[in-house]
């Protein structure tokens, strides 16, 4: 499709771009900077609306096959738009964000979302690299947006250095793939691999390098080291955004590269690896190590943001379960899990922000007796999110895990299932530690009251109700995920 014809398929991206420009210009003109946040909110909502309007269009390649518009991309774009909406909403009520230069903050936040939109739809290595870098660069700035806070600056620098190394490795791997297949277009790579003229070893090495970049984005071991520091240092809304949006974007890129580009779809929704490179075995090991390390490290954390950082590493491990089984069921499970993960993780960070706003504390001790000192609503909501993260029915997180386990058992990866099962039990311990602080311990007096304003309460209520409802009736969402596991190939 030519450039001009392609334009009507990227209306959401255009809306976001326009909003970004207006926010930046507005920053120079408007005195009340809060208005810029509201503008960003409207812009994101408009983008979400535009995505929804395009959701029934047939799959098609755009801009000379650089990006692709298909159900898979639409699904992720909806997730990104919702994540951005929630983040902007949170930012409006965040004391931390009010200390940043808000015009830049909101503009860059939306720019990051724009990059994610392209990550979901990239169908060419070049586009994949550019969009990933775009998201990374904006994330560095967002992380460091608390300019007078040393932790924030340090986090930003660490993020930048890790990111630089990882993306360097990734582009090196991409160059190998280009060398092996003679193309950067996913479909052409797939065709070249299907002919089977490449050395499997060379291909495997190339894939390992590419995995470095993707693994870094989803915070999988061994590319996870940045996450705890960055999550701790960044303003809380940014942490929420990175933990959900950035991770989802990483998965979008990962799935589209490893499935339509490197594998072929066989019978009964099962995929076959092309070119003889045994990367599923490698990812299987990484997956088990990621969830185990994330959970074990989280056990020792006292700072809740850091604890949730390790928990998000563990959840990357869980989601990789759906990735390694090489089946549509697994992919569907990953997509469904991302929705539930969005609800519970944003919710958890929102509660952390409410407590931090009121008391300035981000440690588990700061949650002591929360239910008994005026914060019973955030405490109950937080308990819902945490137990959902631990995978306890009837909450959304359980359903997500159920589908992942189902995909794993169907393909008979019993050891993986067992490791993941034990991991869920371990994870309960640290999630329950926060619940215990909130409910089972009583305030000693010095903690200060926690009040919730209406806007945070509204979002909190919405997320927690969705977490419960999705745990009891999830048929529409799984149907949506099912529909979205459709790549445009060839």
């Amino acid at each position, binding site marked *: 499709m030519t450039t001009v014809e392609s334009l009507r398929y990227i209306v959401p991206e255009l809306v976001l771009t326009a909003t970004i420009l207006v926010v930046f210009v507005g920053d120079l003109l408007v005195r009340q900077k809060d208005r810029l946040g509201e503008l960003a909110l409207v812009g994101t909502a408009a983008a979400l609306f535009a995505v929804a309007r395009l959701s029934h269009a047939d799959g098609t390649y755009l801009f000379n096959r650089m990006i692709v518009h298909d159900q898979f991309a639409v699904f992720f774009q909806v997730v990104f738009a919702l994540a951005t909406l929630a983040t902007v909403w949170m930012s409006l009520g965040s004391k931390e964000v009010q200390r940043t230069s808000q015009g830049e903050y909101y503009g860059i936040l939306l720019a990051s979302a724009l990059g994610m939109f392209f990550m979901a739809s990239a169908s060419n290595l070049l586009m994949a690299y550019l969009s990933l870098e775009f998201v990374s660069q904006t994330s560095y700035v967002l992380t460091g947006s608390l300019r007078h806070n040393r932790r924030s600056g340090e986090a930003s620098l660490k993020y930048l250095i890790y990111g630089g190394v990882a993306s360097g490795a990734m582009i090196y791997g991409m160059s190998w793939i280009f060398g092996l297949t003679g193309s950067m277009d996913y479909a052409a790579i797939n065709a070249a691999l299907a002919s089977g003229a490449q050395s499997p070893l060379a291909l495997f090495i190339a894939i390992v390098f590419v995995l470095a970049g993707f693994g870094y984005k989803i915070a999988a071991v061994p590319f996870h080291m940045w996450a705890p520091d960055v999550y701790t240092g960044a303003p809380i809304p940014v942490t929420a955004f990175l933990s959900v949006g950035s991770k989802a974007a990483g998965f979008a890129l990962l799935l589209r590269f490893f499935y339509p580009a490197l594998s072929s779809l066989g019978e009964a929704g099962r995929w076959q690896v092309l070119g003889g490179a045994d990367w599923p075995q490698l990812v299987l090991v990484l997956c088990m190590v990621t969830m185990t390390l994330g959970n074990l490290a989280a056990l020792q954390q006292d700072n809740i943001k850091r604890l949730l950082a390790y928990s998000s590493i563990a959840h990357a491990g869980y989601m990789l379960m759906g990735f390694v089984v090489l089946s549509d069921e697994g992919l569907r499970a990953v997509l469904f899990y991302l929705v539930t993960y969005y609800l519970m993780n944003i919710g958890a960070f929102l509660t952390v922000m409410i407590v931090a706003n009121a008391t300035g504390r981000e440690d588990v001790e700061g949650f002591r007796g929360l239910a008994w000192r005026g914060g019973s609503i955030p405490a109950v909501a937080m308990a819902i999110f945490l137990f959902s993260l631990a995978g306890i029915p009837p909450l959304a997180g359980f359903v997500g895990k159920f589908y992942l386990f189902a995909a794993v*058992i169907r393909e008979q990866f019993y050891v993986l299932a067992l490791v993941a099962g034990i991991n869920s039990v371990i994870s309960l311990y640290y999630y329950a530690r926060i619940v215990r602080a909130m409910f*089972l311990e009583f305030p000693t007096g010095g903690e200060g009251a926690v009040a919730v304003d209406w806007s945070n309460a509204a979002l909190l209520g919405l997320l927690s109700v969705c977490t419960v409802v999705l745990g009891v009736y999830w048929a529409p969402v799984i149907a949506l995920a099912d529909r979205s596991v459709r790549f445009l190939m060839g």
Partner: protein
Amino acid sequence: MDHILTYMTFIPLFGAVIVLCLPRDAHALIKWMSVAATVPPLLLAIWLYINFDRTAPGFQFMQQANWIPSFNIRYVVGVDGISITMVLLTALLCFLCMFASWGIEKGVKGYFALFLLLDTGMMGVFCALDFFLFFVFWEVMLLPMYFLIGIWGGPRREYAAIKFFLYTLLGSALMLLSMLVFYFNVTDPATGQHTFSMIAMMNQANQSEWLRNGVLFGQSVPVVVWIALFIGFAIKIPAFPFHTWLPDAHVEAPTAISVILAGVLLKMGTYGILRINYGILPEASASLAFLFLGVLGVVNIVYGALCAMAQKDLKKLVAYSSVSHMGYVMLGMASFTAQGINGAVLQMFNHGTVTAMLFLLVGVIYDRAHHRNIDGFGGLASVMPVYTGVTAIAFFAALGLPGLSAFISEILVLLGAWQRYPVLTIVGATAVVLTAGYMLWTLQRIWLGALNEKYADIPEINGRELFTLVPLAAIVIVLGIYPTAILDLMGPSLNQLNGVVATFL
């Protein structure tokens, strides 16, 4: 009355929602509302008891609905002879425990709402016939239990609550995996798709070749799955060596929660083994029951009794006596004889009533003396004659005195087990002496002998407390004389199940 089981399950949940909407300080209103939410299930349970067809071995009062069609997850409830006894027990104990919770003063609203949620979870577990539904209810019980022990419990409540939670969740994780193995290896002949229906799973013809004869981790598949499920259920029973959470949880939990824990939750372990391990994997059950249920059951009996004997804390003694008494259930189940297996389920019911009485009685004395040290009392019979009378019934029932309910079930278990495992039965039977020993010794130390002057004006048991105990005492006496009242409910179902498993012996 097609939806009777659904009503019984969800009316308490509905009550919980209403309780949450009541004003925080309206304590009396909250308490009476909670009682009101447990009355309909109790009345329906009585109706169920009267109308239950005692000749049919299959499931009755079934209701089915689609839930998540794309994964064939359905809402299916129904009762047979095994589950109806547990449903009756649950309805009765939940009603009585509302009154036993009258003394709660901290966070009243939360306590009663969680209790009602727990009620829904327990009912659901016993009624569910879809494995997924069963699993969800199984887990739904966990959260309220965690908070009820953790917030309203004793000094070490935080430790006890998380220990209970982690142990049970470990079992749940294994159950989840086993459930999925079943799902992908059972085909519903009616639809040709995989299914979570327990009824379909129980038909061997629907199971895949791999599930029946495959190899996993170097063992046969049914054996591996059986053991995974068994660990999950054994934690709940609790079978040695998975019992260590129980004394902690019991000692720290408030009285009513101890009653529910011992009276209903422990039964879920043995119920699950009967329903799922026996029902779906009869061949593995026949080969593994001796070691995992017979031997471990006798270990439970003897070890529990010895531990109980050594306790200084009255509540801990009762907790260990539960470990011992649940051993009889395991031994009876392992026997694969009509007497043994009927005795086992009768013992589940009887233990539910007897141990509920014991915990209520401990609660009575703890509320007055604020300690439970067995050696710290003495001669209470002279100041609390009524209390002592009720206690005597409960204690004599627990030690298996003829004429009271537990005697019947224990003798049935021993008679049944004797036919298959004479040596185990002899060892198990000697523990009857141990039980009598610690029960009588305790009775003597607390209620008989010279009066401890400290408790000269201890108030007699009050009307509310008596109200919770009398129905249970009546059941204990009636079932001691006329056990058929319960036995004829379960006979056909159990004999059919036993028939299936026994063919593989």
